[in-house]
């Protein structure tokens, strides 16, 4: 049962053995993941956790079909069983197959990728992390705040990929992040929450310091307290201005997911769904207004979707998905590019861990920045709402019909922010919503998600999303108590 680390030559041997057994393609991938987290609830330490997970996967194409096996044991018998399992799965796949797997060509890769760190988050003493969180907790205290939670986490992933085509790449990715939430409760009022679990970035402890959690906790407390006593919004079509934080999620759900190329092949049709953006629509479908451009980019420093190579061994790239409102591109893997007979526009084959088969995932998918200062964008609103942070969200299986609600919304009158309103939600169709965007500001910032859910078995993927404040006209809203 003991785990041991497999060497680079051992991985090469494994791939060689698979090739000798008839695999037309094989790759071996090791992944070691570490995670440390501290959380504080209502002033007390709630949990202190350190996790480790490591293992090895073998993926083969045999008789034109995929087989994949993974194990957290790397003793000789486990390795032999791993190879047998991968071939048994491939043989079974080949027995129900109409089209053989065809990988789009990519040159063999060699090298290393490492996250640049100023301070390794794993080296920060636990006492320092706890003291920091207790200060954050103290800043969250308010007259009606019933529950306060805050956390700090560090993540490290070491990956090594060796393929039968000569690729041999190693990566060490370190991420740092924090979580904050407050719940305000008052007799006779609906409870109000303010939270954020997307404060995460590839980088070191310096990102946690950059977040200024103490100041942020005060803002969240104020938002929740104010929302508690706020009136309901007026239910009428209005101008909505979204924060970059809110838009990051909208971009993720309504642009990132429908441009995943495996949805075209119906690989996800029974679970995650398909898309409304089909190959014949490229260059023609109006996705949004001319102010709306979106880009997938795996090279952004600090992005949660940034890497040296994806899990197909494709080097990090960037590509346009929406250009001035017109749908133009997809997120692809070698397999999906091969099936669609297009070049790999961006390598997006990613697996959460060693135990997972790589599938098409987002990298950093962002709304491109505009050139207008936020203050000027706001001045153009006679009457509207600032949507500060998303709460609930729900999408249909084509990523076309969506519903979002908000934790916190503020009134904009004559270009100035006023008090809070509550109960705001909106449902829309994706092209209709993005078609209402009349301006994107220049204050672009990057956000990180830890747990984009897709695939069977479930894979939770890290992805990044950049956005700036943006303005949308005449959006119908719902208001509920």
């Amino acid at each position: 049962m003991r785990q041991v680390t497999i060497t680079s030559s051992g991985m090469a041997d494994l791939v060689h053995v698979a090739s000798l057994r008839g695999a037309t393609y094989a790759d071996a991938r090791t992944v070691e993941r570490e995670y440390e987290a501290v959380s504080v609830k209502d002033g007390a330490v709630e949990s202190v956790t350190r996790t480790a997970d490591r293992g090895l996967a073998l993926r083969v194409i045999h008789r034109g079909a995929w087989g994949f096996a993974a194990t957290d044991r790397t003793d000789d018998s486990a390795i032999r069983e791993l190879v047998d399992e991968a071939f048994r799965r491939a043989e079974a796949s080949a027995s129900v197959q109409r089209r053989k797997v065809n990988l789009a060509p990519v040159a063999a890769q060699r090298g290393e990728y490492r996250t640049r760190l100023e301070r390794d988050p794993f080296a920060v003493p636990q006492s320092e992390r706890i003291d920091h969180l207790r200060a954050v907790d103290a800043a969250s205290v308010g007259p009606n705040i019933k529950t306060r939670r805050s956390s700090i986490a560090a993540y490290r992933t070491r990956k090594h990929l060796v393929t039968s085509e000569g690729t041999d790449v190693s990566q060490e990715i370190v991420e740092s992040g924090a979580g904050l939430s407050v719940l305000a409760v008052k007799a006779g009022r609906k409870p109000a929450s303010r939270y954020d679990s997307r404060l995460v970035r590839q980088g070191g402890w310096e990102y946690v310091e950059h977040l200024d959690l103490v100041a942020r906790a005060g803002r969240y407390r104020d938002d929740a307290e104010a929302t508690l006593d706020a009136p309901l919004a007026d239910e009428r079509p209005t101008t909505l201005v979204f924060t970059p934080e809110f838009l990051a999620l909208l971009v993720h759900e309504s642009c990132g997911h429908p441009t995943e190329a495996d949805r075209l092949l119906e690989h996800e049709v029974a679970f995650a769904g398909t898309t409304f953006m089909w190959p014949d629509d490229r260059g023609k479908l109006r996705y949004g207004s001319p102010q709306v451009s979106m880009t997938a980019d795996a090279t952004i420093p600090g992005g949660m979707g940034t890497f040296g190579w994806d899990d197909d061994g494709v080097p990090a790239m960037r590509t346009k998905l929406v250009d001035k409102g017109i749908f133009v591109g997809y997120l692809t893997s070698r397999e999906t590019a091969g099936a669609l007979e297009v070049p790999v526009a961006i390598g997006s084959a990613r697996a959460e861990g060693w135990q997972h088969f790589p599938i098409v995932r987002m990298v950093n998918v962002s709304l491109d920045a505009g050139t207008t200062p936020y203050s000027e964008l706001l001045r153009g609103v006679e009457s509207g709402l600032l949507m500060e942070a998303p709460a609930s969200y729900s999408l249909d299986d084509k990523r076309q019909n969506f519903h979002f609600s908000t934790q916190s919304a503020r009134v904009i009158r004559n270009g100035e922010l006023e008090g809070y309103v509550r109960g705001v939600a909106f449902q829309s169709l994706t092209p209709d919503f993005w078609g209402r965007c009349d301006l994107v500001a220049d204050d672009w910032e990057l956000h990180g998600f830890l747990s984009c859910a897709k695939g069977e078995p479930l894979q939770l993927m890290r992805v990044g999303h950049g956005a700036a404040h943006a303005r949308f006209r005449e959006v119908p809203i719902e208001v509920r108590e």
Partner: protein
Amino acid sequence: MTLLGADRLLAPLREGLRDVAADEADIHVHRRRAAITRYSHSSIHQNAVSDETHATVRAIVRKAVGVVTTNSLVPSDLRRALADAASLARASRPDDEWPGVADPEAIAETSSFHEETAAASAQTQAEWIGAVCAAVPKGMRAAGTSQIEVTEDAVANTRGVAAYAPATMAYLRALVLSDTYVGSGYAEELSMCSDALHPRAIAATAAEKCALDRDRIQLAPGDYEAVFEELAVAEVLRIMSLTGLGGQSVREGRSFMAGRIGERVTGENFTLLDHAMDARTIAVPFDVEGTPTQRVTLVEQGVARGPVYDRTSANAMGTRSTGHAADPSRYAAGGHAGHLSMTGGPATREQLIGAVRRGILITRFHYTNTPDPRAATMTGTTRDGTFLIEDGKITQALANVRYTMSALDLFSGIDLLGPQRLARDWWSSNGMGSVICLVPSIKVRRATITGSSPL
């Protein structure tokens, strides 16, 4: 994965815990072999198997808790993990609400393990898929998933708890799509036994729905009578579970039950239990703390009776754990109701549909969420079989609709219930959630539709 069995799995845990340098400690081990084969366009496109072991150790020093996980079951590795956890605890602060690790209690024998299922091969899974694809009529294509999962769970602690249970799960789903029009149908089966899956029947049900799902029209928003099939009801129950059935959510005032225990929250036709020991479900008879999982009445004939608890939330609420501590890597502490049983009735599908004057039939939902957790409000779009019912008959296919409504309001209007079957909601079907339900189809007086997807 070779099953280790109780003795071989518990032995390294006991060995690791011996002379631990902490006030108390426990270890939970989850071993899993997950074999998943996915297909689309009547062709297998993913075929993966993974064998994994996860040991979560907790060490407690002066009421401060440290948690460490590892993939290894070697006693020296477990001892090292316990020492690390104790070190984390020493550097932490005491938790005044720490209830202590569980005391030993009698644990019922598990009934969720089926040996033949544990031995099911990749070829068997491919044969199920081949049978589905072969049974789909010309002009249609199939996609879906076949899954075999074998697990072993064990908990040991310094007070002498030593719990062990294996389990198996077999699952097959088929989404059938038309090649010539926009339409789809869906069916699935879930069991602890692989021989309880019927690929051809699954294909036939999905294909029949797909054949009906043509020439869709859009439905105007409004309140409608409705038939919710089992998967649709399971989705609503998941929302209730995540937002309101755990002790911590009641304690913090986030639950629909908060301040309302003993009061009527739904109609009399709604009774909901958490019942992991029901022989028809798939469950481990203890939780990750080693507490035997109890049968808990959550809502009885419309009256809220109380939530489920783990040790911490039970301690805070002055009661005993019901054995519902959840995997802390996936769920917030406080209790997770993951084995729901909603009381059913005798109505056939024809009777449910026949009782609707003008309304809708919902097969299942996609990507639901809760804009108002305290009211257990759910929003989500329907998929793979949404139909208009007029004068007791299905008359028209509908474009997918958005449904937005409180579960409490929905369950206040139950007119008829069908028999229970084992089902999971959309999220839980791929492992994002962990709720498994014995759930009936229902006919309700009112379901609120708030929008329609395009045709």
